[in-house]
């Protein structure tokens, strides 16, 4: 049984199809890459999976349960979390509060309790803070917990976004160009980290990335998207040698 199963998914914008008859699956604890030239429709696929866009046709199933057309927050509760290509943190909140927002899905006290400041509230807040701090520690951000998110350096913002996504306790984590803007060293670190959290949290991970060293290094399986359609699927080794992929990326004259 695969964790994420997508069948025949299509989406078009004003007559232009961004994604067409898309079939796709991610297994349990599998790390899958989605690559393709700019404008191939990769982010659109992510937006469809997470409910930001509603598909025109096709189904998306998580753990065999149909999640097509649900609201993003419901999809989150079902166990999908993601990061964004252009980082979307809660900029004016502290690093800690960013993660705490993600922990809101199972808040241990009611609104009335919060307003009345009953003991349950303080206990609950303490618990939330502790959990949030644990996630920050994984990404080495615990020392910066009181800083305003937008003041973090770029690399740390990327890491915070992953920490925040992880805090929603997903079974499938979707990373949209997690290494964008990082130097090779940082990318190396990130690769290790991604592998580690996959094992630690028993996650399936789906990522879009332009940095081929990262994609080829960590992914077990890769899908290649061009003009909204899958043109190839396979292990990194297979993809590296696939003719259509090379054409799509470099144009035909390279042959």
């Amino acid at each position, binding site marked *: 049984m695969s964790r994420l199963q997508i069948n025949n998914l299509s989406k078009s914008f*004003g007559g232009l199809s961004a994604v067409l008859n898309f079939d796709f699956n991610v297994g349990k604890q599998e790390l899958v890459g989605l690559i393709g030239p700019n404008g191939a429709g990769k982010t659109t696929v992510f937006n469809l999976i997470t409910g930001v*866009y509603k598909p025109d046709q096709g189904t998306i199933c998580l753990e065999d349960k149909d999640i097509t057309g649900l609201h993003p927050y419901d999809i989150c509760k079902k166990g999908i979390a993601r990061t964004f290509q252009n980082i979307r943190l809660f900029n004016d909140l502290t690093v800690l509060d960013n993660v705490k927002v993600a922990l809101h899905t199972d808040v241990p006290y009611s609104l009335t309790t919060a307003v009345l400041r009953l003991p349950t509230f303080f206990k609950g807040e303490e618990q939330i803070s502790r959990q949030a701090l644990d996630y920050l520690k994984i990404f080495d951000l615990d020392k910066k917990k009181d800083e305003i998110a937008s003041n973090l350096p770029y690399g740390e913002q990327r890491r915070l976004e992953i920490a925040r996504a992880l805090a929603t306790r997903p079974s499938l984590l979707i990373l949209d160009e997690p290494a964008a803007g990082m130097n090779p060293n940082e990318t190396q670190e990130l690769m290790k980290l991604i592998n580690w959290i996959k094992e630690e949290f028993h996650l399936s991970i789906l990522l879009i990335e332009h940095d081929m060293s990262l994609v080829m290094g960590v992914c077990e399986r890769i899908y290649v998207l061009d003009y909204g359609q899958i043109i190839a699927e396979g292990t990194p080794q297979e993809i590296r040698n696939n003719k259509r992929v090379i054409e799509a990326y470099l144009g035909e004259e390279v042959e």
Partner: protein
Amino acid sequence: MLEFMQQLVNGLSLGAIYALIALGYTMVYGIIMLINFAHGDIMMVGAYVGFFSISILGSNIVVAMIFAMVSCALLGVVIEKVAYKPLRNSTRIAALITAIGVSLFLEYITLYFLTAQQRVYPDSAFPLHKYEVLGLVISNKDIFIIVSAVILMIILQYIIKRTKTGKAMRAVSLDREAAMLMGISVDRIVSVTFAIGSALAAAAGVMIGLYYNAINPLMGIIPGLKAFVAAVLGGIGLIPGAMVGGFLMGVLETLVSGYGSSMYRDAVAFGVLILILLIKPTGLFGKNTGEKV
């Protein structure tokens, strides 16, 4: 039937005024995505300039209108430079609040210097002639106002579609950064937009003065809001949309007060606004666009 036709005529001439104000509203929105709350008040200033040039300088109606249009064009440019330009990169909410501020400022500065007393346009400025066609009463003022609204719309449409400045305007409205990189002076285009929009408002102001004779410092608020509703109804940012929206609003209001109750007229206007916003926020003629993620 005759009564209904008469109501239609009434509605069209009222709608022409809304359309004129809505044209300027929609232009500014199209270029810099700002609801220029002060637009109705610029119209009020135009009405006053027209009044003073007729009553003090003794100019005729054409001169008065040109005078009002030129001064309001300048006023519009100054307002943009002083109040809106510094905010071009802030949030839209900040810009909207500023626009509310400018609106209040124009109203109360006028109230302060010219008092709350209404001023009366001299009747001789534009003598009334009535025509009876098949039992319908139509006056030369009705015809004047409807025809000038249509002509101004056509001119505006021509400027935007055919001239170089118009093309630059459309470029700026589509993508300000890209337009700037293509060598278009965004500042100049925004100024031109405000100038044209404000001049149109001034023309509407003088027409209201001629049509209803009385003007006062707070006269811009309600027509301004209604014109905005008209612009949204037609699809904000679209010139023909503002025109059709204006006429629709005018007819609708007249029918509501003619066949329903005039006390609910304003509620109906805002009700239409809310319905449009909820059902088709881009208006009757607008295309839907989603947020890019």
